[in-house]
C-alpha cells in the first residue's frame, strides 16, 4: 500500500470533513428518513417501505416526475440555444477586453437574490405589465404569461442563462482556432464550420453548460412556484406540499431521493458523453 503523504492529507482533510458532515451525512439521513413513519404528526424511526409504496403508486407523483424532467430538459435546451449566439459572438467576434467585460457583466446578476430577480418579472410579464402595455399600443394582447409554462421557463432562464453563456464562451474561446482554419483550408464553408468543427471541438464545455442548466432547473422551486403558478406542480413544489400536509417528511424524502438518483444518472450520462473520444484506444 502506498504510504499516506501527511502533507497532502493535511490539505485534503478540510474538504473531506466538510463533505462528510454537510453532504454525505445528510444524504444518508435523508435516505434513512424515507423509511421512517409518521404517527400523530410525529416522525418515528422505522424501516418500512410504506412511504415508497405510497409515493410510487400515485399517478400524480409520476405525472409530476415526467413533467419536471421534461421541463428541466426543455430549459437546458432553450438555455443552450439562446446562449450559443451570444457565446459565439463573444468567443470569436469580440476582442479580449470586450470578452472580459461581458463575462464580468454576466456575473453581476448573481449579486442580487434570485427571488428578487424572479419577482421583477411580475412587473414585466403581468396582464397589465410592461410587455402587454407595449403590445397594447399596436393592438395586440393582452397575453397571459404569468402562471404558465412560459413563465416557468422565463424564471429558469433568469437562473441559468448567465452561467450557460459564461461556460459556453469559455469553452468556445479555448477551442483550437487552427482547426477552424484547417477546415476552411480543406473546403469547409464558414457556416458549416460551426457544425463540422466548432461544436465538436467545444463539445465538453457545451455539454457541461447544458448539464448545469438541467441540474439548476430540475431542483428549482422559485420559478415554477411564482412564475409558473405551481400547476402542475414540479417535484420541488411537491416536496414542499408534502412536508406541509401532515408533517410527511418521510414521503418528501422519498421524492428527494428520487430526484437525487435522477440527477446522478443524468450527470453521469452527460459527463460520459462530454468526454467520449472517437475511435478505439
Amino acid at each position, binding site marked *: 500500500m502506498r504510504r499516506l503523504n501527511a502533507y497532502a492529507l493535511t490539505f485534503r482533510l478540510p474538504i473531506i470533513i466538510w463533505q462528510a458532515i454537510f453532504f454525505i451525512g445528510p444524504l444518508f439521513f435523508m435516505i434513512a428518513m424515507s423509511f421512517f413513519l409518521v404517527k400523530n404528526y410525529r416522525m418515528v424511526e422505522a424501516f418500512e417501505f410504506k412511504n415508497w409504496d405510497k409515493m410510487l403508486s400515485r399517478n400524480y407523483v409520476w405525472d409530476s416526475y415526467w413533467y419536471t424532467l421534461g421541463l428541466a430538459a426543455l430549459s437546458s435546451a432553450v438555455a443552450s440555444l439562446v446562449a450559443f449566439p451570444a457565446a459565439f459572438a463573444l468567443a470569436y467576434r469580440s476582442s479580449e477586453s470586450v470578452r472580459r467585460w461581458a463575462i464580468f457583466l454576466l456575473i453581476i446578476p448573481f449579486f442580487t437574490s434570485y427571488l428578487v430577480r424572479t419577482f421583477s418579472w411580475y412587473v414585466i410579464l403581468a396582464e397589465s405589465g410592461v410587455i402587454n402595455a407595449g403590445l397594447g399600443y399596436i393592438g395586440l394582447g393582452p397575453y397571459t404569461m404569468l402562471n404558465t409554462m412560459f413563465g416557468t421557463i422565463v424564471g429558469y432562464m433568469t437562473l441559468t442563462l448567465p452561467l450557460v453563456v459564461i461556460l459556453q464562451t469559455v469553452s468556445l474561446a479555448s477551442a483550437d482556432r*487552427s482547426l477552424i*482554419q*484547417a477546415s476552411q483550408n*480543406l*473546403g469547409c464553408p464558414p457556416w458549416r464550420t460551426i457544425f463540422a468543427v466548432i461544436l465538436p*471541438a467545444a463539445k465538453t464545455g457545451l455539454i457541461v453548460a447544458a448539464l448545469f442548466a438541467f441540474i439548476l432547473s430540475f431542483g428549482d422551486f422559485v420559478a415554477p412556484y411564482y412564475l409558473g403558478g405551481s400547476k402542475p406542480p414540479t417535484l420541488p413544489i411537491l416536496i414542499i406540499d408534502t412536508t406541509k400536509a401532515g408533517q410527511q417528511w418521510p414521503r418528501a424524502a422519498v421524492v428527494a431521493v428520487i430526484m437525487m438518483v435522477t440527477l446522478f444518472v443524468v450527470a453521469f450520462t452527460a459527463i460520459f458523453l462530454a468526454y467520449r473520444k472517437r475511435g478505439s*484506444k
Partner: protein
Amino acid sequence: MNEPLVVLDGVQKNFGDFFAVKRADLTIEAGEFIAIMGPSGCGKTTTLRMLAGLEAPSAGDIRIGGKRMNDVPPHQRDTPMVWQSLALFPFLNVRENVEFGLKMRGVSTAERRRRAFDWIERLEIGEFAERNIETLSGGQKQRVALARSLITEPQLLLLDEPLSALDAHLVIRMQGVLARLQRELGITFVYVTHSHSEAFAMADRVVIMSQGEIAQIGNPREIYRTPANRFVAEFVGRNNILTGTIESSDTDQVTINSVIGNFSAPTEGIHQEPGSLASIVIAADMVRITREATDAENTVVATLISEEFVGSIVTLFLEAADGTEFKVQLQERALTDLDVHAGGQFHLSWATADAHLLPENNG
C-alpha cells in the same frame, strides 16, 4: 496560355505598420518542389498563408493556374496545407480526418471511404484507420496530415514547417516520404522551413527570404555556391566571408586587400571600382588545411579554436591573426594526418576559382 502554375506579382502584406512581406515576385512551375526558407519573422509563413487564402495580400496579385486568387476565400481554393501544429481534428478518427476534404465536397460515403483507404494504405497507416488521433505517434500523425491534404488530389500542396516537431531520425525518414510522394504524384509542393538540410535535401529550387523580401531564388547548388548577398552567405552557413578593399579588377579576376592578406576571386561579370569595399565568399569545404605553408594562390595562417563532428564530416573553427573566423569542412578520416589540437597553427588555402565575389557589398 502558358502561365506558370503560381505567380506572385509584387505581393505585399502589412499588418498595420508591420510589413510581413514587403515585396514578393515569384513564379512556380507545375510539378516543382519549392522551399521557402528564412529565419523566423522573414515572411515565409505569411507568404504561404496568402497562397492558401488565409491572409489577403495588401498589394499585388496572386494568380494560381492563371486565375487571380486575391479575393477567393480559402474554402473555394484547392490549396490544402500541412500545418506546423498538424491541426488534425481530435474529435474524428484517422479515417474521418482523411475523408474530411471529400466530405466537404459532397463526395458519396462509399466513394470517399474507398479513396480514404487508398491514401491511408499508401502512407502506411492502414492499421490505425479507426484509431483516435491522440493515440498516434508524431510520425504517424504526420502521415495522417499528409493523407488528409492529398486526398483531394490538389495541384498545389502547401507545407508549413511540417517536420519541425519530429525527432531527428524521423525527419530524415519523412523527407524521403515527402520527396517520393512529390515525384510520384507530380504535385507542386511549396515547403516553408527554417532548416537548411530539409530545404536543400528535397527542393528543386530554394527561395531565401529576409525581412519580408526575397533575398535569392535558385537551385540548392546555386544558393550554396554563389550566394547573392552577405545575408544568404551567412544564412546558409558554413561559408567564410572575407571583406576588404578592391586592389585590382580586370575582366576575369578581382583582388581584394585585407589585414590578413590579398585574396582573389573570379569577377563573374561584376565590375567594382578599385578602392571600394567588397566581400568574397569561400565555402568551408573548399578550403584546404595543412601543417606546412603551401604555394597556393590564396593563403592564410590561422589558429584552431574548436572542432565539431557531424557524422563523418568534421568542421574546424579557426581564427586568423586579426580575429577573422574561418570554418573548414573535411572528411573525418582526413584528420588523422593532420594532428589537430586546439591552439595549433595551420595554413589555410583555396583556389581562386572556388571563391565567389558577392555582387553587392551590403555589409
